[in-house]
């Protein structure tokens, strides 16, 4: 009977689903499932990175011109914010693994706040583009893509679009389609991530996670880091590509 009691200990966790042998198997299956989902995400963003690479090869000067109009400071600050949020997310997983609930809740809260900060800064950037008539096509009814082009010899106005030799407004518009598609999709992932973090925060305050059972924190952490990685590539590719042209 003693061995039976020991088996009860292993199998008895309230979060263990009946189709798993034990908590470790359940955790590994969950992590694996998340990785398979992330593979589909890699292919999804991969398609957009391909579109970016293709059009940039076709319109190099226009891409550099469009990129130079983006706010490098806001982009860099947002990169820092996102990296910090990845760090706090990793720390949230750590504190869950060692079963320290107070710092776990604090780290999850910080991650959520940093994620929302990123979205706020992104919204400021989008508004700047709106002001400068840089929203492509007719996405905004009655406000088509129509930036004012900086003329040679005129005083430099940062609201005007400076076209490098070989660039046209039409080709720069293609850059902005890709910019808004990629950063918009990334922002949507951040919004979903913020929702998931809210769920984690509520459940961690209820004390649902412990060293034995913390798969939700772990897999949402994986998702959060993935979204961070997408931005790590988006930042240099969108904001920094034309800065060395003078």
């Amino acid at each position, binding site marked *: 009977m003693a061995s039976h009691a020991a088996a009860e200990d292993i199998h008895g966790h309230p979060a263990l689903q009946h189709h798993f042998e034990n908590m470790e198997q359940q955790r590994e299956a969950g992590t694996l499932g998340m990785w398979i989902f992330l593979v589909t995400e890699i292919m999804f963003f991969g398609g957009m990175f391909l579109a970016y690479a293709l059009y940039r090869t076709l319109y190099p000067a226009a891409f550099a011109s469009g990129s130079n109009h983006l706010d490098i400071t806001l982009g860099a600050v947002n990169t820092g914010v996102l990296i910090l949020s990845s760090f706090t997310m*990793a720390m949230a997983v750590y504190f869950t693994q060692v079963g320290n609930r107070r710092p776990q809740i604090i780290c999850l809260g910080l991650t959520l706040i940093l994620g929302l900060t990123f979205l706020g800064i992104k919204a400021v950037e989008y508004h700047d583009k709106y002001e400068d008539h840089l929203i492509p096509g007719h996405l905004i009814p009655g406000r088509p893509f129509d930036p004012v082009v900086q003329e040679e010899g005129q005083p430099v106005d940062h609201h005007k679009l400076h076209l490098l030799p070989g660039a046209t407004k039409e080709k720069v518009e293609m850059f902005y389609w890709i910019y808004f598609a990629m950063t918009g999709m990334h922002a949507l992932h951040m919004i979903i991530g913020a929702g998931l973090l809210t769920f984690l925060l509520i459940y961690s305050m209820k004390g649902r996670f412990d060293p034995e059972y913390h798969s939700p924190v772990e897999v949402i952490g994986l998702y959060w880091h993935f979204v961070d990685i997408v931005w790590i590539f988006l930042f240099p590719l969108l904001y920094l*590509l034309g800065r060395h042209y003078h």
Partner: protein
Amino acid sequence: MSEHIVSVRVYITIFMVLLVGTALTVLAAFVDFPWRLNTIVALTIATIKATFVVLYFMHVRYSTRLVWVILTSALFWMGILFAFTFSDYLTRDWISIQR
């Protein structure tokens, strides 16, 4: 539990590496590298940063073989996506057929 717990010190180190990488990529963007190497430099820094995130923040370094296989197969397929598409677009001028 056989689960590997990454230490706080490692997390802080990776965080610092990522911040330094971000600073480096911004600085490098303003340097005019010869032979249009700017993109290569930017992508190399981004790839190094991403590798650190994947290995330590996402625990892949301590994960099962199966996770490694799944991740590398994803990158391999993305390689096919890029290689096949560009082998078309970049070679269209090689033949003189009117399009």
